[in-house]
């Protein structure tokens, strides 16, 4: 069961995501954004960072990368697709998740631990968690404020306090089928107590479990 961790120019969390997946028993490989085929993989993670410098809009340029057509194909086939932070922004820009991410309410970058609450356990990152469960993992973003005029998003996790002003306090959002999700805080930064928390394990373990159960919901 292999996960492709996609790297765009400006991505910076790819090694952390690979480290975390491997620490949890998964198998992952870094894939350059100019690759065109993800045939060898069972799932995809778009990691955090500043693809294309976050210029124009976060994720706006990255969504045209060659690899993105296969990401879309996998998403449509029901494979697990997870965007973390900048990856969440890309999935929204690509239309694979509803809404968009704008600047934090207080117009400042936020890097600290935040408390989240599991709202929906039928998604690729929450299936092993229980409803109402609290997880504490780091947030690290400037454009983390999720807005969705269509109000059609499925919220997987929400902030206990809403540090960035997100609509519906959403910290993680999934598509209808639950196989595509975006999360603004960083689960890979929350897998070891020596770094402050291991609450993020359940989220990445949910993702790894989803690879086994793929496709999550038959098309």
């Amino acid at each position, binding site marked *: 069961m292999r996960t492709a961790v996609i790297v765009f120019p400006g991505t910076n969390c790819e090694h*952390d995501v690979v480290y975390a997946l491997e620490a949890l028993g998964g198998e992952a490989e870094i894939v350059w954004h100019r690759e065109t085929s993800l045939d060898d993989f069972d799932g995809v993670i778009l990691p955090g960072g500043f693809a294309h410098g976050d210029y124009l809009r976060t994720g706006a340029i990255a969504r045209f990368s060659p690899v993105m057509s296969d990401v879309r194909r996998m998403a449509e086939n029901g494979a697990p697709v997870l965007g973390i932070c900048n990856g969440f922004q890309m999935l929204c820009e690509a239309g694979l998740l509803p809404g968009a991410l704008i600047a934090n309410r207080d117009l400042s970058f936020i890097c600290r631990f935040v408390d989240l609450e599991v709202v929906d356990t039928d998604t690729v990152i929450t299936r092993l968690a229980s409803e109402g469960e609290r997880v504490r993992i780091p947030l690290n973003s400037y454009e983390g404020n999720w807005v969705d005029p269509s109000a059609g998003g499925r919220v997987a996790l929400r902030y206990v306090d809403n540090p960035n002003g997100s609509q519906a306090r959403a910290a993680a959002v999934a598509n209808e089928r639950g196989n595509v999700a975006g999360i603004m805080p960083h689960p890979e930064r929350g897998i070891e107590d020596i770094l402050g928390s291991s609450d993020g394990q359940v989220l990445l373990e949910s993702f790894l479990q989803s690879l086994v159960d793929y496709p999550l919901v038959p098309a």
Partner: protein
Amino acid sequence: MTTPTGPAHQKLGMTDDEYESIVGILGREPLPAELAMYSVMWSEHCSYKSSRRHLERFPTEAPWVVVGPGENAGVVDIGDGWLAALRIESHNHPSFVEPYQGAATGVGGILRDVFTMGARPIALWDQIRVGPLDQPKNRYLLKGVVSGIAGYGNAVGVPTVGGEIEFDDCYSGNPLVNVMCLGILRKEQLVLGTAGTPGTIAVLLGKATGRDGIGGASILASASFEDESEEKRPSVQVGDPFEEKKLIEACLELYEKSLVVGVQDLGAAGLSCATSEPAGRAGLGMRIELDAVHRRESGMTAPELLMSESQERMMAFVSPGNLDRVLAVADKWEIETAVVGEVKPGPNLTIRHNGRVVAEVPAASLANDAPLLDRPSARPGWLDDVWSAQTSVNDVEPVDLLLKLLDDPAIGSSAWVHEQYDHMLFLSTVIGPGSDGSLLRMKGTDKALAVSTDGNGRLCYLDPRRGAARLVYEAALNVAVAGARPLAVVDNLNFGNPEKPEVMWQLIETVEGISGACEALGIPVVGGNVSFYNETDGVDIHPTPVVGLLGLADPMPSSPPRWSQANEGMEIWEVGPEPTDNLAGSAAQRVAGEALGGRPTAPSPERARRVVTLAADLAHLVPVLHDISDGGLAVAVAEICIASGVGARINNAEPAAMFSEDPHRFVVVMESGTADLPADLATRVGIIGGDSLSLGSGTLDLSIITNAWRQALPSALGV
């Protein structure tokens, strides 16, 4: 060839003597491009002409030093085939002109110094000094600098894991922004800034060249430039962290594939420096075609191309057989390249532009033959008066003074700053901002690196030698309480106008202080930076050396001490020499409204050594260690209470005992009997418990001190 320039040298900030030296070297009058190159390379910033002879005093050797001062970054051996590269740099003047871009490009520059050595930059530290926050201009500067560091550091993908903020009137017209970077590399990946052998090709990588920051490193004026280029010359450089991120990854890939023989970053003095220094180091010459340089603007003159400080550029030296592979790597990372020249036998750097030779000078003369000045120095006459000033805070109620201290933006929480920085990237930050030294684990090993950066302009104003030595000891203790032993120092010497004998005296005393302390600890200085001319309207800043100290924890404590691990019933011990009642230069003196005065307590090398070793050992045993610095024991204990959410009682509340900042002392909090503390150094001073902090007969609610400490900086900033 174009016509020589004559007296234009003065407008480029050069003295007549310097001009004569150039004529002596060349045996003729210099051409405009040549003069431009000498003017930037021989500027104070690039040549260290006022400080160089004094910096020789630093101890620079130790068995673990791989590269000492002189290269782009110092490199030390940290065992198991790993090296660490470190460097500190100032961006004071650019940050005053434009705080966001000034600080941002400072981050970009220090990163290049480190990845030039073959290292992956793993962390940054920032030291910010501005005037008091009751002035809007200072609030604007602090906000701009912090967002510049955040904007660049976060986007370039290197965590900023610590730093310092200090406020003083002396920085009102002249803020200080220093940035330190640490990188790690495998031994075999070390790259030096050398041009290699004749035939080696010079490839310029990165951003297109524009008229950015021309003369950033020296004082430039018009004469040698055509008029129309004059008004197009922006002194502000704009940073592009995205370009730098690609540059880091591309360079690391080049090193991994062994495709380069040498690399030099383009910082101050741009191409002039990136050609002459590597050629000079190799004892060779070079031919450079300026027409090949890719640019952002049209109509650039040769002097402009040679002096531009456009950011995010690197020069790689490549053997011809590897050129195609180098270009392919750059292409993969979407980086522009230009093959700009070739290394030649003989000493000369030959530069051509528009088909003509515009400069032909001995490469090494630019880098090495800058005049070495011996500026006069004199002990300031005012020191005696300052030393004799009496300070006393004896009539102040200790709890009142403590509350004032916690409510001070320099002592209260720095969360407003460091929560704007990504300080967790790379999953290494075991102890991050908001404690003493930062502790970064090295995944896949048992080791961790610890770093502390410390400065204190007030202390160094009162006694630069003692003050500077105390900074080294403080930094050493900060890494020791994280479990590390001191390994190496980098320093940033921020001073006033070196043409004033008092400023030179301050510099010499500072160097002596740093050197003595490093010798006492047995650690070398492996790099640094000097920033002079920090003055406004003829008033110099306090002498403000900043020390960055790297320590190694091998092994890393399995559960490193943290301020937050104090629990009900634990004992509080103070370890170190008994404090005197000397409050010279202390935070207590400042917040009590007393004038800066007195002579700071001298550090003791033997005590320092012993205390540092003891702290590093204790870090494996006890739950809480905290060094005593700004605000003394009272503030140290309050910080532990706030972090742990529990109160404490301190028995003896004598102001001297509470607020002294006498050197090499630290606090231990532990269950009774957890560790044996040496009887001659350790005193039990109190106990953890309850929901208030009691100093003698005074008491403060935990919620009150917590709130004061949390709000200090945000409310001073009005955010």
